[in-house]
């Protein structure tokens, strides 16, 4: 692939919280349709990095540029705020660890899914409804629950709804912050299965933050291992997990519990 194809270009991104170095000189490129896993222990700066990438936090230094559908490359922090917000609700998606952060809990499931459509000017109730039903099916939510508010959903259902709400606009890049955190193992497995299927089918690029190496192994093409805000190792997922080079990666891989 040529350099022109890069979807998200990240160069020397650093973010400090006072004295704390949350993100230290991170550089990488993300290609369309690629799934990049970011792993590391708690407090290693994974989420901070993700928030910077998604323009939810402004890094102290560095450059993040995004190539849009028309092939135009732009620095996401040089864009005007409305442009950036437009990008965030059309071309991008953000799946929060806690689905209650990413959903409107008083609005029905259908309304949650339809919001992005209405945001970009869809004004036909029937179409919105139809699209919401389609997505309820795709994320394996019971169609009968389309008019229930998400507060009546289980954690796994909420997470699936959040994913549907993000994917309905046909994003090209989705950021996921521990999408399986807080779910029990069987629900986790089902969600991962679903995610893998959707990501492959829609050819959407994903940056997924997780501390669970099994999640990373299952979903991501490429892996970055972070520690103390810095990327200590990166490479193809299988390569990093089967033959870790950095001492910390070795520790991480050897810490996986064997049942």
């Amino acid at each position, binding site marked *: 692939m040529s350099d022109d194809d890069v979807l998200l270009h990240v160069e020397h991104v650093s973010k400090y919280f006072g004295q704390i170095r949350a993100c230290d000189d991170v550089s990488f490129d993300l290609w369309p349709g690629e799934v990049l896993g970011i792993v590391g222990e708690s407090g290693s700066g994974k989420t901070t990095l993700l928030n910077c990438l998604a323009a939810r936090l402004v890094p102290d230094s560095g450059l993040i540029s995004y190539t849009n559908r028309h092939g135009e490359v732009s620095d996401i922090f040089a864009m005007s705020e409305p442009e950036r917000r437009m990008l965030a609700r059309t071309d991008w998606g953000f799946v929060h660890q806690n689905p209650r952060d990413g959903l409107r809990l008083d609005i029905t499931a259908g309304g949650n899914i*339809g919001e992005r459509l209405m*945001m970009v000017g869809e004004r036909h*109730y029937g179409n919105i409804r139809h699209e919401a039903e389609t997505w309820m099916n795709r994320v394996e939510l019971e169609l009968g629950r389309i008019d229930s508010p998400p507060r009546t959903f289980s954690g796994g259902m909420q997470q699936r709804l959040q994913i549907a709400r993000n994917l309905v606009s046909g994003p090209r890049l989705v950021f996921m912050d521990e999408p399986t955190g807080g779910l029990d193992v069987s629900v986790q497995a089902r969600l991962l299965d679903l995610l893998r299927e959707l990501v492959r089918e829609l050819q959407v690029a994903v940056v997924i933050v997780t501390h669970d190496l099994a999640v990373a192994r299952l979903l991501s093409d490429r892996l970055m291992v972070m520690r103390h805000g810095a990327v200590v190792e990166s490479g193809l997922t299988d390569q990093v997990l089967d033959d870790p080079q950095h001492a910390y990666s070795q520790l991480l891989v050897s810490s996986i519990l064997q049942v």
Partner: protein
Amino acid sequence: MSARKREAWDGETGYNFAYLDEQTKRMIRRCILKAVAVPGYQVPFGSREMPLPYGWGTGGIQVTASIIGRDDILKVIDQGSDDTTNAVSIRAFFAKTANVATTEETSKASVIQTRHRIPEQKLRADQILVYQVPNPEPLRFLEPRETECRKVHAYSEYGVMQVKLYEDIARFGRITTAYAYPVRVNDRYIMDPSPIPKFDNPKMDNSSALQLFGAGREKRLYAIPPYTKVDSLDFEDHPFDIETWDEPCGLCGATDSFLDEIILDDQGSRMFACSDSNFCGERRAEGHTGPMTNDPATRIEEGASKNV
């Protein structure tokens, strides 16, 4: 109340003309000018304590106080009626502090302060309609963060407003929002038209009269200048419509006005009557009758209105 005899302002009441001091009135007028210049935009203003509780029309009363002149004729309505507590009190307030003439006749008034209704009679270019607004932010119940609301307005990201209407249809099969029905002013700002019934929304569109909105507690003013486009939000397959009634007004027989349902006894009998008391009264004076004009149940109501 008949038109009061006007006398020169003597300041004997101990208040400045129209209660507020001149500096405050100037401040409010500047905000009104800005509001008129940017139709539908909520202008912050330094709302003052008024001698009535928040929610009783402190915003409207401040707007009225700052625009009213000695020659103005004031009409105050509450839910369309001239003779409810709120309307009577505010009318008496300005009669006392500004010594202005007051009227109940829509056509004679130059300033009309209103709560919950727009008069049935078409307003003219030389009239100003002042609304009392409890909650000026149409996004409030969808987006509790004020900072976010302001960005949504600034960037016209109004899709979320549609979500509210979607919810209505999803739950009830039609848009059930019946009052404070959101409108788009001049193809730009989404505005809460205060709790008027959606029946009155079409009257705001391209109105000849200047419309001013004041929210005292929330410290916001906004305006619709004369002849401005005001659209009610809707869906293509669920278009905006107004309330209709199966019966005409029981007193005057009107079929084109907003009707109140009045319970007459505990046996389930009821009647519908115009909410705009002046409109209904004028029609009856012209000889229009409704199905209950001679009904004994309405006699008390007629007697009561004569006493006011």
